[in-house]
C-alpha cells in the first residue's frame, strides 16, 4: 500500500477503507440505525442552533442570556472610537476580556432583538384579535365520546392510574373518573388543558411523548391513546407504541382509539390530510406494533360512520383496539 517512495498510496488506501465501510455496514456488525442513533443522541444534548436547526431557535437562545450591562455611550460608539477612547483605556487596564464580551454580546444581539420583538408583538396581536386566527393545521380535538362507555367498561377492573393522551378538553377523562377510575390526561394545547384543569380534572399541558418519557416502567394501570396518533409520522408512532407498552404494569392495558385510514382520507379536511406528517394506521398494524413490544391482543371494535347516501359506504369509521400486558 505504498508507492515507490515509501509514501502511502492514498487512492488505494481510501478505496480499501471505503470497501471496509461497505462490508461493515452489510455484515450487520452494526445494528440498524446505529449511526443515526449516534447523531440523535448528541443532538439531544446540543443547543438547537449547534445542530443547525435554524434561525428561530437561535433567536430564542439569544434572548435567554442574562442581562448585559449597558456601558453608557460606549456601546454604540465603540467602532467610532474617539469619544470612548478614555473609557476604553481605563477599562483596558483592568478588565479587558469582560468588557469585550459584554460589548460584543450586546452588538451581536441588537439586530436580533428588534426583530424578535416585532414578531412577538405580531403574534400577540393575532391571538387577541377579534377575528379568529388563520387556519391552523393542528387537528381538531378528538371526538371520542362514542367510545367513552366502551373504554370505561373495558378498563373497569383497572388498578392504578389511567392516562388519556391527547385528552383535549378532558371529556373522556371526566367520563372515566365518573366511572370510578383514577384517570388523568395530557394535551399539548394549553388552552384546552388549562380549561380541563380549571374544571377540576388532572390534566396537564404537556407533549404526550415528553410526559410518557418521564413515566417509569409499569407505573400506570392503562394508557389510552387517541386523536393525534392518527397523523404523527411513523417513527413517532413506533416510539409511542414502545413508551406506552412500557408504561403499563402487568395486566395493564393500552387502548388505541383511531380513525380508519380510508375514512380519514375521505372525510378529513383536505389541508389537514395533505399536510399531516403521517396517516392513521389500521388496527392490525397497531396490534402488530404493540405485540412486538410484548402486549397481547384483547379486543377490537369498529364503529361504522353514517353513510352519506343510500348505498354508499364510507368504509369503517373509527375503531378501538385493546391490548394488554400479560401478568
Amino acid at each position: 500500500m505504498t508507492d515507490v517512495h515509501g509514501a502511502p498510496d492514498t487512492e488505494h488506501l481510501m478505496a480499501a477503507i471505503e470497501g471496509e465501510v461497505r462490508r461493515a455496514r452489510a455484515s450487520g456488525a452494526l445494528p440498524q440505525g446505529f449511526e443515526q442513533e449516534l447523531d440523535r443522541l448528541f443532538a439531544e444534548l446540543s443547543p438547537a442552533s449547534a445542530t443547525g436547526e435554524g434561525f428561530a431557535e437561535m433567536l430564542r437562545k439569544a434572548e435567554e442570556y442574562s442581562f448585559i450591562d449597558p456601558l453608557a455611550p460606549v456601546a454604540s460608539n465603540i467602532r467610532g472610537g474617539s469619544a470612548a477612547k478614555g473609557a476604553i483605556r481605563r477599562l483596558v487596564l483592568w478588565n479587558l476580556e469582560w468588557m469585550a464580551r459584554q460589548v460584543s454580546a450586546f452588538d451581536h444581539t441588537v439586530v436580533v432583538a428588534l426583530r424578535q420583538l416585532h414578531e412577538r408583538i405580531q403574534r400577540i396581536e393575532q391571538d387577541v384579535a377579534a377575528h379568529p386566527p388563520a387556519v391552523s393545521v393542528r387537528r381538531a380535538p378528538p371526538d371520542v365520546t362514542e367510545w367513552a362507555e366502551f373504554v370505561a367498561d373495558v378498563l373497569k377492573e383497572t388498578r392504578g392510574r389511567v392516562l388519556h393522551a391527547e385528552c383535549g378538553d378532558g371529556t373522556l377523562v371526566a367520563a372515566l373518573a365518573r366511572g370510578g377510575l383514577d384517570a388523568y390526561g395530557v394535551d399539548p394545547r394549553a388552552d384546552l388543558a388549562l380549561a380541563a384543569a380549571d374544571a377540576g380534572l388532572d390534566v396537564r399541558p404537556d407533549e404526550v411523548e415528553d410526559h410518557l418519557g418521564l413515566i417509569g416502567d409499569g407505573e400506570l394501570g392503562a394508557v389510552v391513546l387517541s386523536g393525534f396518533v392518527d397523523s404523527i409520522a411513523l417513527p413517532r408512532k413506533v416510539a409511542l407504541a414502545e413508551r406506552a407498552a412500557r408504561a403499563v404494569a402487568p395486566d395493564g392495558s393500552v387502548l388505541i382509539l383511531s380513525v380508519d385510514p380510508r375514512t380519514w382520507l375521505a372525510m378529513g379536511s383536505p389541508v389537514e390530510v395533505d399536510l399531516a406528517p403521517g396517516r392513521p394506521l389500521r388496527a392490525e398494524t397497531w396490534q402488530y406494533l404493540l405485540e412486538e413490544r410484548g402486549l397481547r391482543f384483547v379486543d377490537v371494535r369498529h364503529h361504522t360512520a353514517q353513510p352519506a347516501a343510500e348505498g354508499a359506504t364510507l368504509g369503517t369509521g373509527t375503531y378501538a383496539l385493546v391490548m394488554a400486558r400479560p401478568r
Partner: protein
Amino acid sequence: MKALHQFLPSYAVHDAVGGHARQIRRLAREMGLRSDIYAGNARRSGDALPLADFERMPVSRDAVLLYHLSTGSALVELLLHRPEPKVVNYHNVTPAQFFDGWDPPMAAELSVGRHQLEAIAAAADLGIAVSAFNERELRTAGFRETAVAPVLVDLEAFDRAVDHQALARLTKAKAKAGGGADLLFVGRLAPNKAQHDLLKALAAYRRVYDPKARLHLVGTSSSESYRTALVAYADRLGLAEAIEFTGSVSDGVLAAHYRAADVFVCVSEHEGFCVPLLEAMHHRVPIVAYAAAAVPETLAGAGVLLPTKDPLTVAAAVNRVLADETLAAALRERGCVRLGDFSLERSRRRFTEVLEAYLSGG
C-alpha cells in the same frame, strides 16, 4: 529597531500560542532587541507582563508591536491608538458559528475577532500567518504584506519531560483490560474540534473492530456547556469507562499520553495549524485525520487523510492503520520527514528571516 514587544489577550503557559510567543521572545532577544510579552490577563509575578506596564511606557519610535490574533479583544483598540509600527501574527479565528449555540458570548467575541482582523489590516505593516491556509485569510482581510512562518514549537522538550508515573498508569490500564487500542486526541474541548464526532467514531470502532478500545481526550475546555454535553454523551453511549477527559495536563503527562497512544485521531472542523499533529509525528504515533482547514497542509501526507468523518469510515481507517504494520510504518516515516520541515531550528530561521526582512525594509 530596538525592541519587539508581543501582545496577547490571554497568555497561558501550556498554550501553543504561549509557547510560540516565548520562542519569539527568545529569538528577538538573540537578535539584540528588547522583548517582552504583554497579556490582558497577566499579573506582575508571571512570565508575561500586565498591559498596565506597557501603557505607562512612553511612545517609542523604535519598537515594533507584534499582536497575536486568534480571537476578538479590546486589546486591538489599545494597539490601534499607539503610533508604533505593528505586525500581526495570525493564528486564525475559529468561525463564530461553531460557538453560536454553545456559548453565544464567545461566538460574539469570535465574530468581533474577524472584524478586528480587517480593522487592523489597514494599520499593520505585515501579517505573518502560520500556514498558507491562514495567509489566504490575511490577504482577503486586506493585509498588504504577508508572509508564512510556521509556529515555533520545541518538540525536544517532550523527551525531557515525560511523566513516568502517568505513563505507567496508562500502560497498566491497557494490560489490565487485556489489550484494546488507545486512541488519542489532544486539543481544547471545543465545538470546532468536534470531540463529539470522536465519541461517535469510538462507538463505531468498538462495535465493529475492537470492543476494548479506549479514547483519551487531552485538553482543557473552551466551553463548559460543550464539555458537559460530551460527558453526558459518553455516558449515554455507555462509554464513560472507555473515555478519559484529562482536562489541562503538564507537558510531562502529555508526553506520557503520546507515548502510550496507538493512534492519533483528529476530526476537527477548523484548525489554523494544529500543533498536536506535529507532536504526534514526533512521538511516532500514526495519524488518522479529517481533511478540514489547515490539517491537510500541516500533515502533507504524513497521516491518513479522510474526505469524510462519518463514524464508520473513521473506525475503518483506524483499523487499517492498526492492522497493517506496513502502512503504519510508512506513515511514521512520512511523519519523521515532515517534522524536518518544522524543526525548531528551521522555524526559528524562517521567523528570523521574516523579521529581518521587515525590519530592514521598513
